[in-house]
């Protein structure tokens, strides 16, 4: 701070330059763990991934194959299935989660009695370990054993075979995602409570109804937060792995965890996500060169969304820095 002020005023040049160099060195020292980590676990692997994408590699033999891996991708049906599934999750699951989170948050901020208790209840499921929650949902939604079937049946609605039917499996995962909406709710609640009260009072004086107040005041004010959460949600969904993997494994009744037999995507490839296919190709079939092709595609897509995020982020965070 002091050095920067000095520098801007342009006084005492040699002293100031020495000070600035000291400040840079000190920052370097504090940052060093991350700089080393960034180099070993980001820069090097990224370059290496590009290199491997032109090789055939199974951890024993390394053979340059030119563009073969890239060409194979164009004809890899499973890869395209996984892209379609991941896209489905981005287009359906992310918006539903944001809308639901916003709705629940809006409700809790409006509650007069027991708001704290309700907030706790709604937040709780988002803490449940992913594997445990997924197991629970497969059991609950299982038509043979699950209570959901019994309850829907009592009201006269036939229950689908959620995780056993390709048409419904992704909806089952979506229900699971909506159940654990608590983190979004907390973020949106904080944003909603930050909206200046006077705005609502002024609007109410002008005769604006509840819906108008929401669309004209609330939404514009919290828009950055909602957008940030939506983009973060897309990036997280591009990595969607555990829930799909566990649901498919448990629903299919397949054996083993870390060896062989199980191929993700049950039923019928309907839950196969892109990262799952990458994992399968790279670490189960040991087609590591080809997995690197998939990795670079995933990298490109997530970078697009990260750049969108960074642009937004600069908009509403830099002034305090």
């Amino acid at each position, binding site marked *: 701070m002091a050095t920067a002020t000095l520098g801007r005023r342009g006084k005492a040049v040699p002293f100031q330059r020495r000070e600035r160099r000291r*400040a840079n060195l000190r920052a370097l020292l504090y940052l060093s763990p991350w700089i080393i980590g960034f180099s*070993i676990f980001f820069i090097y692997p990224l370059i290496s991934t590009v290199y491997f994408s032109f090789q055939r590699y199974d*951890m024993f033999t390394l053979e340059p194959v030119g563009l073969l891996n890239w060409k194979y991708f164009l004809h890899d049906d499973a890869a395209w299935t996984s892209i379609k599934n991941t896209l489905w999750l981005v287009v359906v699951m992310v918006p539903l989660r944001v809308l639901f989170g916003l709705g629940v948050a809006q409700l809790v901020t409006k509650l007069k009695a027991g708001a704290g208790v309700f907030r706790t209840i709604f937040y709780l499921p988002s803490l449940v370990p992913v594997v445990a*929650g997924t197991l629970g949902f497969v059991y609950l939604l299982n038509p043979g054993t699950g209570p959901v079937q019994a309850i829907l049946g009592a009201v006269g609605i036939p229950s689908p075979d959620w995780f056993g039917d390709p048409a419904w499996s992704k909806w089952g995962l979506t229900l699971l995602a909506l159940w654990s909406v608590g983190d979004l709710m907390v973020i949106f609640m904080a944003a909603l409570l930050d909206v200046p009260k006077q705005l609502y009072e002024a609007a109410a004086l002008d005769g604006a109804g509840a819906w108008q107040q929401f669309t004209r005041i609330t939404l514009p004010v919290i828009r950055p937060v909602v957008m940030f959460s939506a983009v973060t949600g897309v990036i997280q969904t591009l990595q969607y792995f555990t829930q799909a993997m566990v649901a498919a494994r448990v629903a299919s009744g397949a054996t083993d965890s870390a060896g062989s037999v199980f191929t993700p995507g049950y039923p019928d490839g309907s839950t196969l996500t892109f990262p799952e296919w990458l994992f399968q190709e790279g670490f189960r079939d040991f087609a590591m060169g080809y997995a690197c092709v998939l990795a670079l595609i995933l990298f490109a897509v997530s970078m697009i969304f990260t750049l969108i995020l960074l642009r937004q982020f600069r908009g509403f965070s830099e002034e305090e820095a």
Partner: protein
Amino acid sequence: MTATLAPETIARRPAASTRSPRGRALLYWIAKHAIAVALSIMFLGPLVFIILTAFMSNRQALTSQLWPQTWNWSNFADIFEKAPLLTWISNTIMYSVLATVFMLVSSIPVAYALAKFRFRGRKLAFLLVITTMMLPPQVVAVPIYLIWARFHLTGTLWPLIIPMLLGDAFSIFLLRQFLVTIPREYSDAARVDGCSEFRTLIRVILPMARPAIAAVGLFQFFFCWNDYYGPLLYAGTDQSHWTLSLGLAAFKSQHSTQWNLTMAATILAMAPVIIVFFFAQKVFIEGVKLTGVK
């Protein structure tokens, strides 16, 4: 409670209630709370069913009945015989504790530098932290796996723990977001009193940042506790290196129809998280708010 009271209250004064402003406010109040109660049932329902099933007999768990005919407490003892749960639990604790401690030691100085120091490339460094935070772990998985294979550490959990000594992007980001909100006057005052930069961090900043450090630490701990992808990639086929999440996912397949035991094991994995949450609820909520970015 509210739902059962509601209809009577309206019924007593049917005509006046909807027309007068007070009546409308009351209706609005009832509607809001009724929705909240309905949502609570939906959010808590799955947890309640998991708990109820965990107590059922194996045969009853295969029916769609909701309430246990007999409360089989022995299920919770049985699961320890069916699988090496104690090994998985101790592996999970080792992974979670070491990763959290390593992460805090390495990430706090980085976050502090990003929040408070002025140096060349500060903005760029922060942008790169966000970029790595957003990067799907699968993108760089192959080369990193090969590094650990070269050190013969695949088949253990160490590839998930050791990198935490070199900082974690998400934690750095969250800590930085909190540290920028601490007014500069505090560290300036410490410096006037002759504190070195490092002593300022330890003596002045860290005590003030305690809530954020607690939140970030808890997030990291639970991320590890819940992690499935990492152990699936590195722990290998030897069950003695598995974590609770990994074992839990395989549990149902190995004991194929025993839903009651699977649910009992599920509760075992959930319980610590939920207990800690009730003790540290405020820390959690404040931490989640930090992730939302202001």
